[in-house]
């Protein structure tokens, strides 16, 4: 038999630190430079997530409509100016943050940066564009909500955080019709400010380009005051269910409200969740997929939010397997606090997590994402090394203790959306 090749376990991962400057308006500009890089990426992070909106869909609409017309150019002119140089603008939104990202080829930086400025600093929010956007989004959300997975995700957030909680609430798509110019303008004025913002960029090492980006970011208006978002205490419930007659699969979500990344047990719980369902070969995959064939996929992870965090298990199973799948999930969760994980299994998980970090950090774009996340969490890129140390040294006893403390199966929230008849 052929001998398997020897394996080298990387002992450290090189993580570049950004250079940082504080601009005249108070904005932190973090730059990751790489000589010869032929792409420039610029990400503006604002505390302008859905928890900061006073009316449904305002936060997402305010960011999506940034590029739909300025005081100088129409929406189509801006679209042309981006597409012509192969540059792009994309947005992402969660409950806490709005991230506005611009990308262009380094050789078209000069041609693109003016358009980027216009998009971020001078949105018009014309009523006509708002109504086109609203009908488009209403349709896509309605389609999205036909999926059992979407229904389950929304019900899960609602059950974890409780009625009306800003981390758990979702709205009927018809409310898109109520959006007005003033809603968006007002939200933009209040949230897209220097006090709520930091910037991460990745580019080549030409100082002129970085200086140009600084001049851009310096124009973000300062209001002189920072108003933190108040998040009320959650009121979790344990079970929710929706019958969908035509479903062939049930979407199942199981989880538990815990804590965010700032908590000293977060990384430990990440390891616990990895063992449970963080990789192909995890206990949940072995049980639900490989042994029972209930599902195509099942996954567990720790989710970090600014003022909360939770453990989530997600799977779609054949409707006829729904109850058995939930039983097996609860049994696997329970096993974590009863048995010590074997040295072999723990070592596998350590190396997978290590490889995962290496993959994320391989290439300039992943490094931007890591830097954004670290900055949001009030830390810096050294947190990777600290996390890796903890992953390297965590013991089976601590893993069992964490599971015992935080993952009592009786306290899990369970959501099923599917056909149980």
């Amino acid at each position, binding site marked *: 038999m052929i001998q398997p090749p020897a394996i080298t376990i990387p002992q450290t991962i*090189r993580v570049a630190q950004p250079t940082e400057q504080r601009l005249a308006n108070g904005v932190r500009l973090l730059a990751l430079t790489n000589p010869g890089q032929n792409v420039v990426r610029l990400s503006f992070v604002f505390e302008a997530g859905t928890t900061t909106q006073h009316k449904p869909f305002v936060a997402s609409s305010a960011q999506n409509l940034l590029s739909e017309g300025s005081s100088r150019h129409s929406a189509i002119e801006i*679209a042309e100016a981006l597409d*012509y140089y192969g540059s792009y603008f994309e947005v992402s939104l969660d409950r806490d943050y709005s991230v506005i990202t611009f990308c262009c080829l380094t050789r078209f930086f000069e041609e693109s940066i003016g358009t980027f400025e216009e998009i971020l600093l001078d949105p018009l929010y014309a009523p006509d564009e708002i109504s*086109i956007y609203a009908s488009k989004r209403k349709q896509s959300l309605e389609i999205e909500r036909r999926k059992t997975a979407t229904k389950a995700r929304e019900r899960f957030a609602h059950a974890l955080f409780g009625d009306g909680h800003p981390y758990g609430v979702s709205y009927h798509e018809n409310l898109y019709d109520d959006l007005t110019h003033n809603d968006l303008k007002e939200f933009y004025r209040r949230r897209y400010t220097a006090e709520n913002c930091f910037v991460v960029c990745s580019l080549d090492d030409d100082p002129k380009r970085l200086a140009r980006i600084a001049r851009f970011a310096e124009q973000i208006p300062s209001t002189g005051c920072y108003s933190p978002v108040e998040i009320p205490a959650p009121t979790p419930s344990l079970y929710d269910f929706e019958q969908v007659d035509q479903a062939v*699969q049930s979407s199942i979500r199981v989880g538990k409200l815990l804590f965010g990344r700032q908590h000293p047990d977060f990384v430990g719980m990440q390891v616990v969740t990895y063992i449970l369902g963080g990789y192909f070969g995890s206990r949940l995959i072995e049980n639900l997929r490989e042994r029972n064939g209930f599902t195509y996929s099942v996954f567990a992870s720790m989710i970090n939010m600014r003022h909360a965090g939770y453990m989530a298990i997600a799977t*779609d199973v054949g409707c006829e397997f729904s109850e058995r799948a939930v039983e097996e999930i609860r049994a696997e969760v329970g096993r974590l606090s009863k048995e010590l994980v074997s040295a072999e299994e723990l070592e596998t998980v350590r*190396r997978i997590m290590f490889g995962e970090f290496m*993959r994320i950090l391989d290439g300039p774009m992943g490094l931007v994402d890591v830097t954004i996340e670290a900055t949001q969490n009030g830390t810096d890129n050294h947190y990777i090394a600290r996390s890796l140390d903890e992953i390297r040294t965590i013991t089976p006893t601590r893993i069992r203790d964490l599971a015992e403390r935080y993952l009592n199966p009786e306290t899990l929230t369970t959501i099923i959306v599917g056909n149980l008849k």
Partner: protein
Amino acid sequence: MLPLWLLIQRTAIMITYESHTLSNGLRVVANRDSDSAMAAVNLLYAVGARNESSDCTGFAHLFEHLMFRGTSNVPDFDAPLQLACGENNAFTNNDYTDYYITLPKDNIETALWLESDRMRGLAISDEVLETEKRVVLEEYNQRYLNQPYGDMWKLLRGMCYTTHPYRWPTIGLTPDHIRDASMATVRRFYDRYYSPENCILSVGSGHDPEHIFALAEKWFGHIPATGFTRDMIPAEPTQTSARRLEVVRDVPATAIMIAFPMGDRLSRSYYLCDMLTDVLAGGTSARLYQRLVKGRRLMGATNAYITGDVDPGLLVVTANLLPETSVAEAEQALWEELRELANSAPSDYELTKIKNKFEAEMTYGEMNIMNKAMNLGYYSMLGDLPLINREAELFRSITREEIAAAAADIFRPERSSTLIYAKQ
């Protein structure tokens, strides 16, 4: 704005590679990327749904699943790879099956060992086959049956192709074919298609290509050639009359798909059709979105794309209708756009925009070593590896007149297949 000629100048994006064929027929391609701490290892087997028979569809994909269920030497494919900090996955399409791994570059031999082992020694028990069938049936449910619009592609393929195996989707025509798959078929399929002659190993890493070739010889050199010959795939006859299918489903919005046959992957038609769809739907400034979604407000979403198959594929135009829009109105609006492309050539400006966009997308894609390794495998399968660096030039050589002529040739009503997926 810069003058046009400045933008169209030749740029320096080239994927460097070296290639080598082992004596057993395995093709090896290596790309050196010294910036990366990782290695990307890609194995492409030139077998997909197009190689299936019509009574055993979905099998290539089912087989891809079985490739992870262990050999006589290595009972669990994933475990040793995970111990080497590696990650892997695979996909099957109509033309090929692709297995890909990323891991720290020092551990590259673990990937080569595991891949060479499963090229020869797959050991599947009846029990594993039965479980894997259930997993694939759940995948069928998850991706197709449990999604709104999940069966649109299946319906469209069935209409566009009468003869060529592209008429069924990769997942298969019916769950019954998966349920009925036998161990004898598994064995036959493996012996026939999983041979070194039908495979391409492509690697992106910081290693010297010569070192990669030596490692390929070490791990794959002993595997015997099987005398593999390619399947003869029946060609699709030329379509001569318009086809149409209307179905009613419980969906929130009526959707339309119009498909047209186009040339194969190596034909000039491929590049022309790619550009046609870019004029129609490449970015938010493109025609369909600006005119039909924003200008006339007929649709909530539109798109146009090519399937990119190796054999002659499809150019597809799609639309989701807003509640006020009738099917007739939407169809007419789409056809007006298609006819306009045939009647008057796109402007130089539009063409330059598309060419710039192509270059930018290529550069963005270049930043990932897995992308590069996959692309090298794909172009090698096409039988024209240097094409990977010639395509930018090919796009630049296309003229406005050529695009209009292609539009007139492609967008013929008698070659169209229209699927109306109406809401109740």
